[in-house]
């Protein structure tokens, strides 16, 4: 487990949890990124300003990290252009159809012991593990 980084993972996870709790305390909203982002791009929503502010805060984080001298590596995405487009479409469509993503279901929902979130998180985690196993070890060679 050469790549395991338990200390930074625990600190980062705690920060994410702290953010979710503060967002509920301050604004009464769930910190589900797919819901926040969808509400920002959807023409039907009326409460865009807090969503835009949250997304701006997300993007400001790595920028600030870079400014203070912390190295933020360029993300390396596996697969071709087609894989990235298909992956993006599935993540976007699936997150809306399933009412949430890793943050909304995985953190906020499971923290409330919501059966829906426990079910959704189990399904998407297992599905992702199967896809990685197939793409890396069966078809990837």
């Amino acid at each position, binding site marked *: 487990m050469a790549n395991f980084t338990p200390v930074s993972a625990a600190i980062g996870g705690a920060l994410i949890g702290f953010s979710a709790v503060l967002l509920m305390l301050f604004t009464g*909203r769930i910190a589900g990124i797919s819901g926040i982002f969808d509400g920002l791009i959807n023409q039907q929503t009326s409460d865009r300003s807090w969503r835009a502010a949250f997304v701006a805060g997300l993007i400001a984080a790595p920028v600030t990290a870079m400014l203070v001298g912390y190295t933020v590596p360029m993300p390396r995405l596996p697969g071709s252009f087609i894989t990235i487009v298909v992956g993006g479409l599935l993540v976007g469509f699936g997150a809306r159809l399933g009412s949430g993503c890793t943050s909304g279901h995985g953190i906020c929902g499971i923290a409330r012991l919501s059966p*829906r979130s426990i079910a959704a998180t189990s399904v998407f985690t297992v599905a992702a593990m199967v896809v990685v196993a197939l793409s890396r070890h069966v078809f990837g060679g």
Partner: protein
Amino acid sequence: MPIFASLVCGFLFGCGLTVSGMIQPVKVLGFLDVFGIRSGAWDPSLAVVMAAGLTVTSIGYALVRRRSPLFEKESLWPTKKDIDQSLIFGALLFGVGWGLVGLCPGPAVTNLATLSLPVIIFVIAMALGMLAHDLMLARAAVRSA
């Protein structure tokens, strides 16, 4: 005030994703690759992120559960209870996309800061996927009306 509070919360969330390394698809895929458990290449960091995040959130939510939010009129706790087809099928599609690329919405949006072209393409596709779903829902509503 609610706008500033949301900005601060977004910033903290982004810091969490950056510090934990979860904005790197390689680390996420390193967790999702269960074959790595046997070979020794497995990276359990994502599980630690979830465990720490869940610990803080469950304690914090229990503390703020009965309070009204400070800067809005009411809290919007989710109310749905039933595990329906949409939930399971949506989670399944989401998981397939997540496994293909190693990005979910939080890390994808946060990574826009790096101006990586593949990430920008992913976020545009993700937005189109969301809008396609919303359009489908709106059409279904018109049909049933």
